[in-house]
């Protein structure tokens, strides 16, 4: 892929994400976050990871955005409180984040990652995995992870269902 497109997508992604974090009104912030998820999915799709790209767009730009919208409707979309004094913890957190980014950026700038050619298809065939499908590849190598993931998703679903149950409203 052309490097110009990578730079353009990366710059757009950083700009949209920064605006999502800086905008005070939660609804506009959510719209920017939706575009951020969409752009990240586009980066995955542009590099040929169609499964991951589509999954990213469906999950984050679709389901999670709708969930955020429902939550904002439930709480009334109150804006972030402004005009309060900046506390010491906030200054320390911001300083540590900027310092961390500078350290990681300087390391990445000097020691760029070198792509290692891996003959995955041959390796997968030798180990008896399906070599053409990422999901069956995942199932062959990380079946227990997926089982625990199903439990985690069920816990999240149970939490959401409990939230909207009638019994909870009577309490």
């Amino acid at each position, binding site marked *: 892929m052309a490097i110009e497109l990578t730079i353009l997508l990366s710059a757009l992604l950083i700009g949209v994400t920064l605006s999502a974090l800086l905008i005070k009104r939660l609804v506009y912030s959510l719209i920017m976050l939706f575009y951020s998820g969409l752009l990240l999915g586009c980066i995955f799709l542009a*590099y040929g990871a169609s499964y991951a790209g589509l999954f990213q767009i469906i999950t984050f730009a679709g389901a999670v955005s709708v969930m*955020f919208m429902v939550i904002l409707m439930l709480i009334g979309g109150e804006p972030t409180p402004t005009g309060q004094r900046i506390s010491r913890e906030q200054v320390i957190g911001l300083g540590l984040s900027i310092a961390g980014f500078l350290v990681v950026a300087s390391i990445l700038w000097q020691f760029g990652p070198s792509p290692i050619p891996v003959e995955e298809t041959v390796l997968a065939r030798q180990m008896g995995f399906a070599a053409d499908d990422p999901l069956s590849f995942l199932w062959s190598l990380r079946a227990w992870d997926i089982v625990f993931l199903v439990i985690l998703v069920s816990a999240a679903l149970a*939490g959401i269902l409990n939230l909207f149950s009638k019994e909870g409203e009577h309490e």
Partner: protein
Amino acid sequence: MIDQQILQLTAAAMFFMGLAGLATTRNLVKAIMSFQVVLFGVNLALFSSGLGPNGPTMFSTALLVLSISIGASIEAFALSLVILVYRHYGTLNPWEIRRLRH
């Protein structure tokens, strides 16, 4: 500079932007939005680290799908906790919630 390096720098920027948002926000919903940005950074780092000369490796794509699912379910759970906190305390300001707790 190669594609992989640009994507990893972008991932680092997103990770630390989300971390800064988590550290400075006074709203729990905004904190979860910042967590989502951290998650985007992690996913992009995972994707770019598996980017070879012939495109992304299947292992990194598979792990990425796993990471997206785990992130989305954690976020759903966190949002349901936020609603419970709002019903109980009537505010979403973590400083205020900490004061009301005592």
